[in-house]
């Protein structure tokens, strides 16, 4: 190509303490291209994007913009060049309107901005009411606000970090149409994802990262998902085929017309939820976060008490009035969606984090902590669940999200629960670890555990669940047989087209 690349990274390296996040990474992005960056968690995707967006600076190497070397000391430098980024977790104020949120970053009169928001929306299929309050918007609409906010700065390069992970299938279609329109306008797009089918459908180039190095640059349309995955993890994909489930056994968890008012303006009220979960089966709850998933999980775990004891039954006992510890004693275990600050205490060591829920596993003697037992349990968990960490004394807060998830899941599985609730088991977890986690859950099922999985990842639910429900605006759909339903049907429940 005669024209210099819009963005070129040459031998860029970044090290955090002992961790080499990126090593001699090269990347070339051209205008009018949708360029995928794929890699496992911890492969260095996020760090690379932070270097491009000026959040972090490389230790060595060069960044070229239109052939000119640039130094990006902060995000505003990147924005000045024409680089925009939409983060995986949105940065919008829920209590402000769309146009108010936009005007926090973009200069201009609110009336003018509102007009521009509407214009851009019409042009690129990003329609959103500029005067709507953000807390009333769906996740898809919030993402559109984020994209519009970037577009208002007239970027030449747009970085999207895992943009589809929060969207229902219908909204993904719509996002892709938008991205193709932007591409047609000559914009370059960096698309970070681990969903290989999407990358194959949308992107014309893909850079593969593995262990901090760029290991390949391919045209994803010429590879199938399996060979892309192999490039990404550097070995044969683990086989996901698994024995069919045994017929389920006795009932272990039951929700009887579980209703609960919303706790705050931004919460969701739950309305008459019925559910039966039996030993040896995995039931999935699909739906977009914010439709009552957090509220439901907290009610089942005991972090929120139900109004009547009989609304929730665990192992045949009415437990709606009991706290988390009492429910755990009955054989319940829970992996929450937030790892830091809920599933684990960031400032404490892994060993001390074992104590959080596994203290009943002979770790206390007259209330005093048996350090040896605590460490032995932790070491076993680290080993059995392939947690990558220096050891039991490592701080939980210093670990990557995926590794911490493996630790928390491992801790809960090692409690040998009879009933387990797992919220978003593979959020932010790389494909290798996600496969391992799903396999663990299936193993648990085969040993007779009853498992309820709340997840936004529909593929995951179809892979491991025998029955699916959809949670939408606090209502739970009837049970759908996973073998008979389709993602499209689930999608209709997710957006409330069917109830």
């Amino acid at each position: 190509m005669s024209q210099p690349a819009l963005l070129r990274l040459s031998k860029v390296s970044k090290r955090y303490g002992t961790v080499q996040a990126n090593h001699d990474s090269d990347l070339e992005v051209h205008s009018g291209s949708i360029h995928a960056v794929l890699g496992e968690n911890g492969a260095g995707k996020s760090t690379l994007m932070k270097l491009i967006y000026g959040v972090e600076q490389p230790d060595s190497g060069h960044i070229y913009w239109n052939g000119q070397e640039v130094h990006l000391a902060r995000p505003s430098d990147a924005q000045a060049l024409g680089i925009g980024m939409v983060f995986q977790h949105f940065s919008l104020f829920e209590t402000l309107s769309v146009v108010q949120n936009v005007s926090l970053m973009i200069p201009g009169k609110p009336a003018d901005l509102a007009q521009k928001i509407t214009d851009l929306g019409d042009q690129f299929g990003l329609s959103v009411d500029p005067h709507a309050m953000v807390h009333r918007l769906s996740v898809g609409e919030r993402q559109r606000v984020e994209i519009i906010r970037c577009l208002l700065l007239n970027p030449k390069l747009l970085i999207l970090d895992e943009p589809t992970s929060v969207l229902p299938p219908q909204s993904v279609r719509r996002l892709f149409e938008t991205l193709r329109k932007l591409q047609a306008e000559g914009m370059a797009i960096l698309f970070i994802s681990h969903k290989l089918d999407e990358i194959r459908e949308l992107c014309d180039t893909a850079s593969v990262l593995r262990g901090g190095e760029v290991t390949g640059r391919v045209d994803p349309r010429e590879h199938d998902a399996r060979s892309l995955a192999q490039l990404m993890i550097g070995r044969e994909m683990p086989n996901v085929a698994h024995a069919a489930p045994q017929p389920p056994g006795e009932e272990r968890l039951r929700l009887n017309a579980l209703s609960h008012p919303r706790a705050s303006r931004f919460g969701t009220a739950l309305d008459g939820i019925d559910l039966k979960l039996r030993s040896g089966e995995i039931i999935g709850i699909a739906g977009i976060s914010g439709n009552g998933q957090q509220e439901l999980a907290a009610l089942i775990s005991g972090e929120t008490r139900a109004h009547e004891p009989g609304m929730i039954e665990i192992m045949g006992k009415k437990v709606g009035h009991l706290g988390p510890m009492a429910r755990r004693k009955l054989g319940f275990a829970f992996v929450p969606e937030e790892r830091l600050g809920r599933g684990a205490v960031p400032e404490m060591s892994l060993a001390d984090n074992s104590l959080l829920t596994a203290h009943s596993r002979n770790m206390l003697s007259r209330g005093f902590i048996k350090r040896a037992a605590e460490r032995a349990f932790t070491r076993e968990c680290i080993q059995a669940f392939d947690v990558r960490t220096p050891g039991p004394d490592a701080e939980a807060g210093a670990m990557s999200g995926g590794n911490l998830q493996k630790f928390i899941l491992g801790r809960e599985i090692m409690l040998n629960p009879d009933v387990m609730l797992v919220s978003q088991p593979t959020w932010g977890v790389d494909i290798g670890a996600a496969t391992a986690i799903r396999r663990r859950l299936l193993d648990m099922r085969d040993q007779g555990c009853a498992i309820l999985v709340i997840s936004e990842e529909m593929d995951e639910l179809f892979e491991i669940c025998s029955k699916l429900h959809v949670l939408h605006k606090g209502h739970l759909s009837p049970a759908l047989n996973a073998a008979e339903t389709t993602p499209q049907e689930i999608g209709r429940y997710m957006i409330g087209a069917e109830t």
Partner: protein
Amino acid sequence: MFTAPVLALVLTCLASLVLFATLGKPAGAALYALLLKPFLSWYSFSEVLLKMAPLLLIAQGLAIGFRANVFNIGAEGQFIVGALCASSLPVYFPDGNFPMMLPAMIAFGALGGTVYALIAAALRTRFGASEILVTLMMALIAVQILNYLLLGPWKDPRGFNFPQTVMFPDNAMLPILFDGTRTNISLLFALAASVFAYLMMQHHFRGYQLRTAGLAPRAALYAGFSAPRMVWLGLGLGGLAAGIAGASEVAGPLGQLQRSVTSGYGYAAIIVAYVGGLNPLGIIASSFLISVIYIGGDSATVSAGLPVAAVEVFQGLLLFFYLLTFTLIRFRFEIDRKVPA
């Protein structure tokens, strides 16, 4: 771990030098009196230990609550109520010669301080009232109760109308630890409390629960540690320690209940707890340091002519610089340009 406190002490000394010099006082001599004189005679050193006992005891109790994000800042009130409850025995039985007098006084003081602190716990758990405000306001109430009793029913009838009770009988006094000094066995209470706090906070599951509640309240909720129990425990133990300290004060150096019992130990202990990093071992060191400053301050007011307020400023500077260095060690400054990120 010790960088922040040491750096804070150095900065405090430098700032005080400047401050004392601008006041027109001999700055070097003042600092010498403040920090070194307490070590130059056995008697002044024993006075340091006497001051250290209540500070250490209260700070250990407060730190337990602070680590669970339960902010009892009215230990002064619990200290006063402890002193009142303990004093009630010798006041009503001025020549009561029963052998259990002293243990009963300590128990009364402990109970009084605990109950007084638990009022705040009840208001917090029942109505969500901030324990910061409640304990602080209750400290002001305690001062008024003290005034009422000393000016009214408990006034020594032969005390020339001074607002103080009768002198306590000998069996109402704490035994002296070292002959020829005023240092009494309340120092042992404080050291025992330190051992207790260390074992509980570092090695016991209850302390683990308190620390979890402070570091990550949602993780404590997830694990099922009862949040109200943390409030009751954090406030109760703080009140207990302050109550015993109050009882020890009247049964020790004062020998009677008088207005000067409100000497600010309860507030100073907050500084002690934080300068000690809320760590039971660190608090032993910080309580010693603050006591040195108290005793050194007394001699500095005499030898270098420092105003009493200057000593309090010195203490305040120490806390200020500690919080500053602590923050700057964990975070770094970044001057942000106008464009938002």
